[in-house]
């Protein structure tokens, strides 16, 4: 099984991704489509900045009062007849799930998409107990059959082409199926329909939980989240502890921001609010509803001024579609559950093995497109800088990098050393320079020059050229209009004053 717990390095995973032409084209095409749709949807409703700001305010408030709203949610859900469980770690979440399975003597589970369930590796744990676990989102079903992990939060199987899907489905069908989307989708529909009707347990994720009524809200387009929360007798919902909203009126804001940011839809085909188990006289819906509230590293971000806002995330995937790095490498290179800019932040901050995940924060150009795209204005690019800073402060950098930085510090902290370094550099580079460029891939320039060439040091530094430049400037000033000249002289005079002080 690839992903989630890779033994490869970020650079190795990136190289694999960059060499996969289908993946690169598919990721580019998909992100372009989603981004264009999002832009159109934001323009359609108008006042997008006001919606974003309101979304941010609601999320900030909720996280700042998280204990209150979680307590209120738990109380209201219990009052509606549901069960609430609290899991501090992935292991606890798995243990609670397995106990519910045992109580229900469950043999099969149907799941709708849940990122947090991927965090805790629930599928693996269930399979180990001999409980059949079927992902029912079409994309998740495809990658489950392939034994892979999602490459995009919203479209998990963008890295698979039709022929590959046909191959996977043919194996399940026991007969060859054509690489035709309609045929493949119809096969999945009928195959999964059987699974829905037989399953003992339905497992869902949770887009939002509403504190004032103890409701959970699910957004889906295919209808599988509705199936999972309608047909099986028992429903288990896993939610990250930050998924909460205070009230129903706040849901309108999130229902405006989430689908538009994710796919550019005004609303997903289905938005379902589940308020406890079915009422006694209802003909369908689960008899028993369990909600497992999961921490798994989230509480470490609380009270940390640099990272608390990452809990505002509503998992729309807009930052992936905007990110120039993600658009080239796709999701698997990030190595864990979440990809793109949000993954580059969540992976190192939610995981405890800092050493292992430190380098994921380097998969960014810090351009800030993620922040621009984020519907709740999370400053992801700033957070990436903070993670890098912590990596340096806590010694999670390469020895050569530390050595290089130390040398640099010495060189730039004294004018004389700096001059000397430049002189030595100019002499040292002579055998390497070709047409003003240094193309060598040897030594410390390897990493940089693998994909570009370094510029050679100039014959004369800017400082050395300054006298000549100043003369030129004065000559030009003679041709300037008297007003401009006066203004410039006035400025120069002021600057001179300051220098003298």
């Amino acid at each position: 099984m690839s992903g989630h717990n890779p033994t490869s390095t970020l650079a190795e995973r990136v190289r694999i991704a960059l060499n996969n032409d289908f993946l690169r084209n598919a990721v580019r095409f998909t992100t372009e489509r989603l981004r264009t749709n999002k832009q159109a949807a934001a323009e359609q409703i108008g006042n997008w900045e006001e919606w974003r700001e309101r979304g941010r305010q609601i999320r900030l408030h909720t996280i700042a009062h998280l204990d209150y709203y979680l307590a209120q949610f738990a109380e209201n859900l219990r009052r509606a007849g549901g069960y609430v469980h609290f899991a501090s770690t992935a292991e606890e979440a798995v243990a609670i799930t397995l106990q519910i399975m045992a109580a229900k003597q469950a043999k099969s589970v149907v799941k709708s998409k849940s990122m947090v369930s991927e965090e805790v590796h629930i599928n693996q744990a269930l399979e180990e107990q001999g409980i059949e676990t079927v992902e029912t989102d079409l994309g998740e079903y495809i990658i489950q059959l392939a034994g892979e992990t999602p490459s995009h939060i919203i479209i998990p199987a963008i890295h698979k082409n039709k022929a590959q899907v046909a191959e996977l489905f043919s194996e399940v069908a026991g007969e060859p199926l054509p690489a035709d989307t309609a045929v493949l989708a119809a096969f999945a529909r009928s195959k999964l329909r059987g699974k829905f009707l037989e399953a003992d347990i339905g497992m869902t994720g949770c887009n939002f939980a509403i504190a004032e009524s103890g409701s959970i809200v699910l957004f889906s387009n295919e209808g599988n989240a509705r199936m999972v929360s309608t047909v099986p007798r028992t429903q288990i919902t896993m939610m990250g502890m930050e998924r909460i909203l205070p009230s129903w009126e706040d849901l309108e804001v999130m229902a405006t921001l989430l689908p538009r940011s994710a796919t550019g839809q005004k609303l997903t085909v289905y938005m379902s609010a589940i308020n406890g188990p079915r009422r006694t006289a209802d003909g369908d819906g689960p008899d028993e509803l369990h909600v497992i509230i999961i921490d798994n590293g989230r509480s470490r971000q609380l009270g940390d001024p640099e990272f608390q806002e990452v809990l505002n995330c509503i998992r729309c995937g807009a930052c992936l579609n905007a990110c120039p790095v993600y658009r080239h490498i796709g999701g698997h290179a990030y190595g864990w559950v979440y990809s793109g800019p949000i993954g580059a932040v969540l992976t190192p901050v939610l995981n405890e093995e800092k050493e292992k995940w430190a380098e994921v924060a380097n998969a960014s150009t810090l351009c800030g497109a993620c922040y621009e795209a984020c519907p709740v204005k999370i400053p992801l690019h700033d957070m990436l800088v903070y993670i890098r800073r912590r990596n340096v402060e806590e010694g999670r950098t390469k020895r050569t990098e530390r050595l290089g930085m130390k040398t640099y510090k010495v060189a730039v902290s004294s004018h004389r050393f700096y001059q000397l370094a430049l002189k030595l550099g100019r002499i040292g580079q002579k055998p390497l320079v070709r047409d003003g460029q240094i193309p060598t891939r040897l030594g410390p320039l390897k990493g940089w020059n693998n994909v570009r060439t370094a510029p050679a040091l100039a014959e004369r530094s800017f400082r050395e050229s300054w006298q000549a430049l100043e003369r030129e400037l004065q000559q030009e000033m003679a041709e300037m209009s008297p007003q401009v000249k006066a203004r410039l002289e006035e400025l120069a005079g002021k600057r001179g004053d300051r220098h003298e002080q």
Partner: protein
Amino acid sequence: MNNERNPIIERLHRQSLQQQEAFLDHIAHRLGRERITTPPARPFAGAPDFWRGFTLEAEERISLFLSNWESLGGVAKRVRSMDDARAYIADLTDRMQAKRLVCEEHPLLADLLPEGDKEREVTVWGGGDPAHLLKKAAEADIGVAVADFAIAYTGTLVLTSSPARGRSISLLPAVFIGIVRAADIRTKMGEVLSVIRTWDGGRMPAGIHFVTGPSRSADIENDLTIGVHGPGSVHALVVDEVDGR
């Protein structure tokens, strides 16, 4: 539903009550303060003011809902009366050669098909064994239900669950027909949420489903596929005059 608890579930429940305190205390501790037990002040809640003030006239709401539903790939029809709606359903049933229907138990939906129609079976939800109802809904070609509301701005039908209106009706059959009274169409979601919130003293229905067009997916090579798990063919009938039957 929790009268006879399984011992394992009972133990989990007791354990949860204990863990809850430690879990929430830890959150408060991380936030650097004591636990909060009184409702916090909310200077910013719900949609921005400009949005709250946005509302459309009745006729605009109807036409916007119809055009949104159509643009999503659904069929939208405005009919004068329930008689017209029944005629539409009968005609669609004929054209599809549908054999089985499942419908909500609702006064508007009585006598859905012409009397003496032995060719077709209509299962009326409402009471009865859940396993039997589920089987009937799974076999049905067409599901018919009356929506509580429609939302014009997004092209959405709102269907709450009840003993008479199963969730399966709008989910399991390949074709769904949703009927909505013209007077029940609202401009935007917030107007619906605030009403449902206060129904029955805050005891909300167990399931509230917002349905916006046919089931869809783009998971295989970005190809749009209609009708993946839910109905692929969805018909919204807006009825102008309801005789209150």
